[in-house]
Structures are given as C-alpha cells and as structure tokens.
C-alpha cells in the first residue's frame, strides 16, 4: 500500500472516478506492473474501503455505485493481460441472480449484482420476473455456488419459495446455496422457506455471499 501508484488506484475507486481508474490501469500495464497486483493491492482495496465506509454510514449508495463503476472500468483494462498471463483474478464464486416471478422491481437486485461483481464474484443476472425453472437451468449450466432471488412486493415473495423448492426438487441443494432479498423480506420468512440466508441491502449481501462460499471474514 505504500506504493504511490497502488495508493492512487485505491483512491480512484473511493472517488468513484472511472476515467482515472482506466488511466491508472493503462499506466500499470505500460510500466509492467502485474495486473493481479494492481487489482489486489490497488483497486480492490478501494472497494473494500468503500464497503466499510458504507457500512458505518460515511458513504452512501450513489458513492458505492460510482466506486463499483470505477472498479469495472479498471478490470476491463486489466482483464485481457491477466488472461494472457494465465493469472486470472480469483473468483470468489458464481452467483445466479434475478427477481422473483411477477416482480419487475430490480433496483435492489442490480445493486447487489454491482457490489458482488466488483468484489470478485462472477454474476449471472437473469433479470426480472424469472421463473424457478430459469433459475434452476442457469444454476446447472454455470455450476453456480449461490442463487439469489429478490422480491420487493409482499405478493411476489411466494416466488422466492418456489425457486428454493425447485432447487431442492432438482437436487441442487445443499451444494448450491439459496439466498433471498428485498424490502419486505424478513429473517422469519427466510427461515420459513428454508433459505440459506437473507439480506436487506447490498453490503450485507456481500458479507452473506462471502460467508456462504467460505471466504468470509469476521469483519465482513
């Protein structure tokens, strides 16, 4: 972290400045810095800081989204070189996301997707009003670690249960973890339908996902 370049990378993410992040990523490649080091010691440190700041109420959702966008911009530059070197960034896990059948509200789900993907998860976003069958098919196809179902409305929360039942029917659980989220979702509901976890916001979802794939830390 003492390296001024890594420090600048971290700061570009905290500032939510995609142009600066892009430039720094390009400079890193031009000067022969290992792209994996750039991510791990520079940019990712910024995301971790932003997440912590959000957690303690010092940063807000728009700040967090801007940080995630900046992270995306940096990864876009670094990824081809990482592939070339065969040093792909370690993926924390594969997560299939979507909103429950009949629910078109995706703002929460999109936040979760952005935060999780910028933190190193591979996200397969099925979009809105996703059927249980679609969740199951995608989870099989990509060999998912986690399936996440979001529902805003009390009337569509039943769709979360249907997905979990479908995962069970297809024998995907307990290997595939099922998590749910949404404004009306409670711990009681999660327990009632047998979800492996629930979260009311994107940062909690990150901690939850990390724990479920065994990459959690006590502080996360």
């Amino acid at each position, binding site marked *: 972290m003492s390296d001024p370049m890594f420090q600048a990378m971290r700061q570009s993410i905290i500032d939510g400045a995609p142009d600066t992040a892009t430039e720094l990523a390009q400079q890193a490649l031009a000067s022969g810095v290992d792209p994996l080091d750039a991510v791990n010691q520079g940019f990712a440190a910024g995301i971790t800081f932003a997440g912590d700041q959000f957690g303690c109420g010092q940063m807000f*959702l728009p700040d967090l989204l801007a940080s995630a966008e900046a992270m995306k911009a940096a990864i876009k530059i670094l990824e081809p070189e990482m592939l070339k070197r065969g040093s792909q960034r370690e993926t924390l896990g594969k997560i299939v996301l979507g909103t429950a059948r009949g629910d078109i509200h995706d703002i929460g789900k999109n936040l979760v997707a952005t935060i999780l993907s910028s933190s190193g998860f591979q996200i397969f976003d099925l979009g809105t009003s996703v059927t249980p069958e679609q969740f199951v098919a995608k989870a099989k196809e990509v060999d998912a670690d986690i399936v996440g179902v979001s529902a805003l409305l009390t009337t569509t929360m039943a769709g979360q249960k249907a997905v979990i039942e479908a995962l069970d029917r297809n024998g995907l659980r307990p290997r595939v973890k099922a998590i749910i989220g949404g404004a009306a979702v409670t711990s009681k509901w999660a327990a009632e339908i047998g979800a492996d976890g629930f979260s009311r916001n994107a940062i909690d979802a990150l901690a939850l996902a990390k724990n479920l794939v065994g990459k959690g830390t006590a502080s996360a």
Partner: protein
Amino acid sequence: MRPRLQLLSPELISRILREAFELLMNPGIRVGSAVVELLQSAGVKVYGGVARIPESLAQKCLASVPRDFYLYNRRGDRAVHYGGDDVQFDPGSCCVQVLDPEALEARPSETRDLVRIVKVTETLPQFAAQSTAVVCTDAPGEIGDLYRLFVVLQYSDKPVVTGSFSAEGLQGMLDLLAADSGGPEGLRQRPRAVFDVCPSPPLNWSEFGSHNLLDLARAGVPAEIVSMPLAGGTAPVTIAGSVTQHAAEALAGITLHQLAARGSPIVWGGAPAIFDMRTGGAPMGAVETAMLNMACAEVGKHLGLPTHGYLVATDSKFVDAQAGAESARSAMLGALTGINMISGAGMIESLACHSVEKLVIDAESIASAYRLVRGVEAGDAGRGETLATAMFAQTGLSGEFLKLKETRSLFRKEQYLPSPVIDRSARGSELPSNVFTRARARVDELVGTYQQPSLPEAVLQKFHTIVERETKRAGAAALLA
C-alpha cells in the same frame, strides 16, 4: 380564511407540466400489451412496448376527467368527496404484518387483525373511508385481494379504498361491490370504492396496471393512480424532478383510462418518497417524502383534478415518539395542502407493518390537522360581532370568562377535545402513563362500542358465491367450508 401551504409557484408547476408532456414523447411510456391497440387507434405510435403520447391527446383526455366525484356509504349517502380542497383520511394498506401489542414484534397479519382495524376505523369519524388495510395470511394468497374486500364489506358501511393484486383479480372485487350496490349500474351510479392502480417507476404502465385502468374505466368505478417515484432510486433525485416524473406517469395513466371510457372518474394520486441512500428503502416519514406528496398534489390541483397522497406513516418499527412526530407532521402538511384522500394512517416500518394502536393515535393527529385547517374564526364584523370587546363588556376586569355563555357555546367549536389517548392530566392522575398503553385501552373501548352492520341475507349469499367462484378460478384452496 382557510390556512394553506403551497410549495410550488405557478411558474414551477408550468415547468413541471411542460417537461412531463415532453417525457410522454421522449423517452415515452412503457405500456402493457392490453392497451396497445387502444393507443394505436387514437393515433399513438407504439414500438417495442413504448408509447409516445402527444401532448394534444393527453390534454384532450385530461379535459374529460370529472373534476370531482363522491364515494357512497352502504346506505347510499355521499360520504367521501374527491375534489376541491376537501380533505379525508383512510388507514394505510396493504402490508402483510401487524405489530403485536403484547410482544411488540411484527407478526403475519390475519383475518382477525383486519377485522379489528376495520372495527376501529368504523367508529372513528376521523376516517371517512376504510381501506383493505392488511393482507390476511390465513386466507389463500391467490385470492388475497378479493378476500380483504370481502372482510371489509362485512364489517363496514363506509366507503373503501382498495386495489387488486392482478389483472384477473379485479373482476371478482367489482362483482362483490356490485352485489352490495344493487348491481353494476348501482355501483357505477353510487361507487362505494376507489381502486388504487400503480404504474411502475419510471414511466411504466405494466400489463397489470394498464389492464386495471381499462377495466375500471369501463366499469365506471373510480381509479386512483398511485404513482410512486423514489427520488434518486427510481426517479430523478430532486423533488421537482420526481414530481415531473409523477406527472408524466399520471398523465399517461389518465390518457389510457379516458381513452377506454371518457368521463370515468380517476384520481391524481401517489405514494412518492425519497430513496434512502443508506438502506435503499423508501422512508415514508421523511419530510421530503411529505414534500413530494404535497407537490404532486399541487400539480393535480392545478389541473383541477381530485387528488390523493400517502402520508401519516412512519419509518419507526414501534409506536414511539418518532412514529408520532413523523405521522402528525405529515397529517398536518397533507391537510394544509388540501389533498382529498390521504392514506397511510396506522402504518409503521415504512409501510411494512400495521398497528391498530397507532391508528387511534393517528386519529388524534388527524383531528388536530382538521382543526388547523378550519383556521381562525373571527365572527362577522358586519353584523357587529366583535372579537373580544363584547365579552369584556360583560366581564370587565373580573376575568370570569368561564361563566360567559359565549364560552360555553363556543369552546367545542374552538377547541378539539381529544380522546384519552392524549394525556393532558397532571402527574399522578389515573391515566396510564404512556401513550401506547392508552392507545391499547382506546382500541378495546372502540371495539366494544362497534356495531356490525347487518347485511341482507341475499347479499351475503352473493358474496359467498363470488368468493367460491374466484377461489376456483384462481385454483386456490377452498376458503369457505
């Protein structure tokens, strides 16, 4: 003089409407397939599910909306007036949880909870209308919307603010109301209920919403647009920007509705809120949320339309000082704006939970708001009525105002006399010490005085037939043994 509050200048309202009409064309409004043909036959271009509605058409549709209308009680009397500056309140709806007054925890709402809310609402004059306040989780979910109305109609004579959960669910609810109003024509002539219909922000009249608008217009049963931009989340972050989006969504809804049946009643309503940048939630008790509701209603009033808003709710999880502060504040603001129907009383936890104890406390805030908008009465100077001198002529400097006949005849008009929910007694008096305990006692007292309306056997029979039919249609488990 009636006191009022106005947030928007006439110039700002003009700007809001100008941009709202622009939004109708660009980016346009996403619409459900149910209304595509209707829009195309009116000359609207619809590509890829997006309609571009010209201002001229929207203006024409605006012109045919009734400026006011009434909701009727079971006896057929006018009981709610949508229009002008009249202000009325109904309990919020429709969450799936209630606050258990013993455990002080949220638990799933059941039929008995809805019945209790309806009974209390029925006895309180502060509520001009009932709402289908909570979903009954002990009834089959597939007919949850119909079942709520079925319960409310059995326990109330008042008008009802309700809504359906699907395109298919509406007809059964209209049939229930018609059975109680002497048939569909009776319901059209003397509507008992208004139906909330929601666009999905931003600028999207989904399949379900557009379908409901059409069906309600054709049935002649009032629709209430509940557009809910979340400033910064699903709408522009500024109040003015979100109000503009709300206006565009409402104008689009009115266009669809009036194209289906000109002259059918519809309300310029909404549940706009800010978007909480920490939690991603919609804080209903925020002052900016109240400002959004006020501003949206002001635009509707400028257009001469009946209005609705979502206030008197709190983000607190308990019936505490925060709940009281947020709910009373927004009740006052809504009343001062002259919003025709203000929904939300009784709700806590940002609309996730209902509390009947809070409902009776909110009733006190509402009564205070009513008192406030009645303003300061000063008698008629032209008829020689004085403010104080005539009374001083009687008392001199004795200070014996309590003895004056004016005091006795006017104090009830001058002062709102609160129920025992509001504690003004001296320390050490008999009243329980905290407001929640007093509210619980008040709920018990009101439930005790409540009398259930007697419905004709033939109507009840029709209710049951409709519920059975809808249960089968929806493939739900049998409800009525």
